[in-house]
């Protein structure tokens, strides 16, 4: 639902979508700005709070449902996309957004990510990527560089190549793929609005620094850059562009045309009629 700001109709404000719970995040965490972007996006779209469900898994970013004032389900590690799929498939009229981090989304929840992309349920997944497990005090995540040696669990570095979330999303068939940077909540909000409005499964990869365990990520401010092309509806073209990009390009890579998955059903028979089939 769109709410137009006119003289006599005052639309909802970002603050209307915030709860009064204080986030547990460390000072300087990128997720504060993402939260600001989320509530701005919700206000921009004028979402009815009671018709909106946010689902998360486990981890720092997965705490977001408690910080919003819509319906939320803070689930278990890695399962947010499956839980959210159940919400949207059962109640298609609800707005469904999912929040999580790189570990939740691509490691323990990797299989669900793959299948959420190919299933293409009409919902929006916002992944806050800081390339580290923050809540368990700084281990390598699936997006951490192979030679990052700061974790006690992998003192020689994880030794394996990081996943590229945007390329993965495209390869698995996501219908809308974008990347943002937490430092710019307005742009984050714009991407979320575009993603929610686009039919099908939208993946919004957001670089969101963990200054506690990855202080060097403060430099992302100067590393990120506009991706520089218009969104395409051709997954092949988007994939070529993503592979040419350095992983810090911001923008909408793909706004595709796949039909969302939403099985329809209408009651055509009574249970009594079905039971008759068992009678001898």
């Amino acid at each position: 639902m769109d709410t137009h700001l006119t003289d006599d109709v005052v639309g909802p404000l970002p603050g209307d979508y915030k709860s009064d719970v204080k986030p547990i995040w460390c000072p300087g965490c990128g997720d504060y700005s993402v939260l600001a972007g989320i509530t701005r996006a919700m206000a921009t779209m004028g979402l009815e709070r009671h018709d909106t469900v946010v689902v998360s898994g486990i981890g720092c970013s997965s705490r977001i449902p408690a910080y919003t004032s819509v319906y939320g389900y803070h689930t278990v590690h890695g399962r947010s996309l499956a839980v959210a799929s159940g919400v949207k498939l059962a109640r298609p009229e609800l707005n469904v957004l999912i929040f999580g981090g790189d570990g939740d989304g691509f490691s323990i929840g990797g299989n669900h990510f793959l299948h959420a992309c190919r299933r293409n349920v009409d919902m929006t997944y916002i992944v806050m990527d800081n390339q580290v497990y923050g809540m368990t005090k700084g281990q390598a995540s699936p997006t951490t560089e192979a030679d990052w040696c700061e974790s006690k669990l992998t003192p020689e570095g994880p030794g394996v190549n990081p996943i590229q979330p945007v390329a993965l999303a495209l390869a698995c068939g996501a219908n809308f793929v974008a990347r943002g940077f937490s430092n710019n909540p307005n742009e984050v909000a714009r991407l979320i609005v575009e993603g929610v409005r686009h039919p099908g499964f939208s993946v919004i990869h957001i670089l969101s620094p963990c200054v506690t365990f990855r202080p060097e990520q403060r430099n992302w401010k100067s590393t990120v850059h506009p991706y520089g092309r218009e969104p395409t509806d051709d997954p092949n073209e988007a994939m070529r562009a993503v592979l040419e990009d350095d992983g810090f390009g911001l923008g909408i890579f793909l706004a595709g045309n796949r039909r969302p998955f939403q099985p329809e059903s209408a009651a055509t028979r009574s249970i009594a009629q079905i039971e008759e089939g068992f009678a001898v």
Partner: protein
Amino acid sequence: MTVDSVTIALVGSGGAGAMTAGQMLLDAAANVGWYGLMSRSTGPQIRGGEAAALVRLSPTPVHGPGDRFDIIIAFDWQNVERFAAELPLSDKSVIITDPSQGEVPAVLAASGAKQVELPIKELAGRIPGGRVNMVGLGAVAAIVGLPRAGIDAVIQKALGKKGDAAIQASNAGIDAGSKEAAGWNLGLELAAPNKEGATRWNISGNEAAGLGALKGGVKFCAAYPITPATEILEWLAPNLAKTGGKLVQAEDELASIAMCLGASFSGVPSITATAGPGLSLMTECIGLGVASETPVVIVDVQRGGPSTGIPTKSEQSDLNIAVYGLHGDAPHLVVGPTSIGDCLFTTQWAVHLAEALQTPAIVLSDQAMGQSRAIVDKPADAPHKANRLLATDLGGEGKYLRYANTESGVSPAAIPGMPGGEHTADGLEHAENALPSSQASDHQKQLDKRLRKLTSYDYGDAWADVEGEGEIAVVTWGSATGPSREAVRRLEAAGTKARLVAIRLISPVQPAKLAAALDGVSKVLVVEQTHGAQFHKFLRGHYDLPGKVSVFSRPGPLPIRAREVHETLLSLI
């Protein structure tokens, strides 16, 4: 002279049509008014390899497999050694064999069973389009005295679409087999059917569970196939759609249960079905359902375990994981149907209980019930529908408390779409207002509340099937109930009174109700199909059992037979 029950094995490698013939035999028996039970014996290879249709027919309801096979008809002997142990015979049994298939394997011949030759392949070969299984069906029908009209109706129903030639070929095959067997006089004619009485159904346990879900009000199912639970999902897929619900094939069991929780969180009663390995994968999310107080029903059709175990055979060894498998203190519902027909009632009841108490309910079915088909009196109908306590005063001044510490322990739920009820359901421990909390007082309060809502609820008489009287009692559950019931009735027929207590509500436990059911009992026999006596230990942990307690516990895959329970009871008297 007639018999009260006849047990038949139709044996042949995949493609011989043993299953089809068994199914037709059961259907034909149903048509003429008999009761029956058919289980399947197959290896894990699905197609090819050994296969047997195991059928028991009787004029009265059939509770379990027969003590031994009265008739074995073999279309071939391929791989029969692999499951010879599943085909108990005696010198009163009859083995019908095709001489062209070679001699009866020594492992079966050693029983001393009478052997009768029937040139099955030759007879089928004389008929254009003739099939060995129809010849076999004709022979068995003649032996047990099955009226031809019953078979005609089955043939018409099964082959009507294939046209007259197929029907004629089948009829000719049946005639040929029937004609040969007519003069054998084996003394295995079944007593006349009693056609009076209740409407009869032809249903499998898995279908009954699916129907129970529908009748309970389930509108969403997320599914991942696994033997022997798949038929529940396959039955639900079209039938949920016809009644306005949805079934989604998920990527794995983790997703199945998680999707169900999501659907249920949004207010839609949900179910999934699985078997042991899938239940293991689901346990984390079942715990989430407990903590977040989200109703969901999981039907676990048990098979031989541990690990991949014996997927196509039955056992009751998932009891421990169903009751104790969740981490933390996570009280939830566990129920077990006591028969094929009861899979309907118990699953429907589970939907009702899960919704009423806002918590997961595990239904412990098993392969022996799930994949067996029976002719039963129309199963009892639970008078229950999903009915979640919804919050009503969301417009008020006070902030909505999702996890309000009510006296009953059940907190009024708000679901998406209800203005004013916005909250975040959480698997993290939380305060009444649903916000995460690690405070001792909040933890204690919520643990107490989640236990209280289960223990203070009135479950009525459905907690167990209780019958009989006397000082000796069999306490059992699940598919061990059938043979236990038959054993108790045999004891009674011989003049010794006995009781049967088949516990349907496994958890939460009902100590006062069991004590009342066993009042005056001096000997208890616990019957279960596990290696580790899981049910006996469970009873020992939660109940006081009177008198001398004995245990009959053995693992699958061989079914527990009434004879075994009866002999154990006799040894206790």
